[in-house]
């Protein structure tokens, strides 16, 4: 990453995108599509979260070790959720 590179414009664009996505997720919640609602909400949240991680937290330009460390948290979280649900839902 180049220290002398200014990120102001990138941050502004990410900020704008996050606001638009928030508006979309709130708007969608007023319509009832059944199970589809939660998938849209989680998809939009994940896109927003990824933008925050990649640009605001600089994970995009960070070194590989930090990227792997942070992503590992979500791998373990998925294991935690998956194994717990496999018990609760199928007992």
């Amino acid at each position: 990453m180049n220290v002398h590179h200014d990120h102001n414009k990138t941050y502004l664009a990410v900020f704008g995108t996050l606001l638009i996505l928030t508006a979309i997720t709130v708007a969608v919640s007023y319509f009832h599509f059944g199970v589809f609602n939660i998938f849209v909400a989680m998809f939009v949240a994940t896109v927003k979260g990824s933008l925050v991680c990649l640009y605001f937290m600089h994970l995009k330009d960070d070194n590989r070790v930090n990227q792997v460390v942070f992503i590992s948290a979500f791998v373990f979280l998925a294991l935690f959720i998956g194994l717990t649900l496999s018990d609760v839902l199928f007992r």
Partner: protein
Amino acid sequence: MSLNQITIAAEPVQSASEVHLRNDRKGHVVPHHFETATQAYEASKLGVWLFLVTEILMFGGLFVAYIVFRALNPQAFAEASHHLDKVMGAINTVVLIASSFTMAMAVNETRHDRVKRASYFLLATLFFASVFLVIKYFEYTHKIHAGLLPAGYFTYEGLSHEKGKLFFSLYFLMTGLHGSHVLVGMGLIFWMFLKCRFKSLSSTYFTPVEMVGIFWHLVDLIWIYLFPLLYLIG
């Protein structure tokens, strides 16, 4: 990474004056167990990322509880969720995203030696964080008066599903833990504000403000998931 590297000479440090070889012009000293300023910076950052992993797994426990109880009581959760104010939740989401933006700007300004502007962005971040907590205060007050409280304190009688009170236990635990992170973050941001005012941060040493920034963005990231899960599931 093209940080100004302050390398130490191969010969051992002999006197107090030689220690200043490892200082940047604003007086920051690279700890003696690091070879270079870059190495110190990378080590700090890896430490913060590891800390964030533990944070995600701590909140993860609550998310798992939420997912399990919601999977078992979908109607009760949908009904209980209607007692949250979508508009207030949405305003708080916008406020927290704005605070993340000003925080990112503050880090960027510090990296370019514009510490005065950085301090203004930190003040703006503090302002947005306060707005978030004030809105949270109004939401909590409303729920406390209605008796929508966790576990045994739950006295509200307008829910048709008995398990609806589980939702409020999770609501208070999740937003409470998140809110305490906002408070801690505000303390750290104020500390960074002082560091900028006293000019102890610069383009050669901006580790603290960048680390606080990464933490603050995590607080935003968690809210990005809390908002739809708690407010938008009706």
